């Protein structure tokens, strides 16, 4: 206890002081607006809506089922269902959101909307520079602002997006196979129905495609 610990500590800080001018490795600071580190793959900030293809309105996966709206703990999602229907990725006619707003000033980034979505339509974004000078409407994002392409999704969460695509493709394939089987069954049935009256055979082309 003669003060040698103090001297040792002073030597340590002196080493840091001098070393920080000599070796850049010592400085771990990332000077943010100019320098930035890439976001982690599992990073999540606020949700966005995925669309396929190039037209966001046509390719939007959301079918306005409103599960996310109901599940959202802070109630930051507002959805209005459309009156008409448009075909989804398997070709089935579905509703689409006429309005889809997320108030990101309310959102708590819990990802529950993503977990509950059966259509892989809502995912978490990594975009965090959302500051706005509009105090009231600036953080209320509408569906156009929320819509981001599947390619973007692949870029920010590659592993997850591949899984989702694989699942959707298998679903689509299964749906197509099912449709095909149903069509074949229908064709066979119609063929069976046609058999007892050989005088007038039904045109089989309609059921086979």
């Amino acid at each position, binding site marked *: 206890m*003669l003060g040698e610990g103090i001297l040792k*500590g002073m030597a340590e*800080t002196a080493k840091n002081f001098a*070393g920080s001018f000599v070796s850049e490795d010592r*400085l771990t600071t990332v000077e943010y607006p100019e320098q930035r580190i890439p976001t982690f793959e599992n990073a999540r900030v606020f949700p966005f809506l995925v669309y396929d293809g190039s037209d966001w309105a046509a390719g939007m996966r959301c079918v306005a089922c409103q599960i996310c709206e109901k599940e959202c703990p802070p109630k930051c999602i507002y959805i209005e269902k459309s009156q008409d229907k448009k075909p989804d990725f398997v070709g089935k006619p579905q509703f689409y959101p006429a309005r889809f707003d997320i108030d990101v000033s309310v959102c708590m980034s819990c990802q529950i909307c993503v977990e509950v979505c059966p259509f892989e339509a809502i995912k978490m974004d990594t975009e965090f520079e959302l500051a706005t000078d509009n105090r009231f409407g600036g953080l209320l994002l509408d569906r156009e602002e929320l819509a981001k392409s599947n390619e973007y999704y692949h870029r920010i969460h590659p592993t997850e997006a591949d899984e989702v695509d694989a699942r959707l493709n298998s679903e689509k394939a299964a749906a197509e196979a099912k449709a095909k089987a149903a069509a074949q069954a229908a064709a066979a049935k119609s063929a069976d129905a046609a058999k007892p009256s050989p005088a007038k055979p039904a045109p089989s082309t309609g059921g086979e495609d």
Partner: protein
Amino acid sequence: MLAAPVSTHSVPVIVDQAFVLFKDWLVSFLPPSWRPAAGVVLCVIAIVCVFPGLFALTTVFERKGLGRMQNRYGPNRVGPYGFFQPVADGIKSLTKEDVVPLNADVVVHFLAPLTLVVTVFMGFAVLPMGRNMVLANLDAGLLFFFSMSAATELSVFMAGWSSRNKYSLLGAMRAVAQMISYEVPLLLTTVAVVMIAGSLSLPKIVAAQSGYTGVFPHWYIFTPWGLASFLVFAIAATAETNRSPFDLPEGESEIVAGYHTEYSGFKFALFFLGEYLAMFSISGIGVTLFLGGWSAPLSFLNVVPSWFWFFSKVMVSIFVFIWMRGTLPRLRQDQLMNFAWKFVLPFTLLNLGVTALWRFMGEGWARWVVSSVILVGVYVFMGRVGMFKKHFGPRSYRYAE
């Protein structure tokens, strides 16, 4: 300032006495009866401009230096390399709202920061900042200086008491306990210097250290008693200015901001300014008492003007303050008090005895050996025995585990 004749030295008079001559030239435009007063006013203006300027520089250098000690950059956004940071800070504190608590004692709350800054500025009046550069050459300049610096305790307690806030009051109580405890060794170390120099006048103390043996100066720090006094003085000065590791009165993690918890805006800036000015003035007095004041560190360096040496010594000691702040963690209140009364004070009293011995043993190597042996022996003894019963190592907790 003194109009004493310039002693023999190698630096051109026009450089060394630049400020004195400039003042004399400015004053010469006035009628003779006005000249002394005008000279004093000019010196006051110089002090009031130079030291806050140094304060501004120090804040940015401190933040950058501390950053480097922690392997960070420190402020580097405002202006080139962040050197306009103090300007931004100044504008910020000027435009901030000045909040006064509803139940505060408004008058005392207002006066506390003023008292601090004014008394600290008064201390600069007696500091010799260069050859012939002292505003008031008082015979008892040292006494004046310490009476003024002791008044900072008053302002700290005024601030803590008038805020009517528990953290403010706790901080003020800590500050007063700490400052009074360390005031004693601080003054006793200066007594040692006065015993040797035989004067309370600061220019005379500087003159007593201005000789050289070969190229080496006769500063008091290069004697056994002087080194011991200087170390104690440095510790006590750190405590006196509330600098880390003695920053308990404003320990953020414990009592928000201590006695200036309830201060905002420019009043807070005044506290900040007063704290740094106190650091400059205590460094200045330390330089004057132990480091030869404005005299050059080696005889051939006399070609550099005297005021340069004074200010560079002050800035070096400021750097040591910052360095300590970057290194040492804050003490606990009981450690602080134990250290002051059980170690620093007895050691200082012993050092007074050693100084007397040094004074009366006369020239020769014997006094070097005797006083060094006594001081080192007692230091080691107190360090070892005083800590004998202390238990160091992992702490055990009774309830929290």
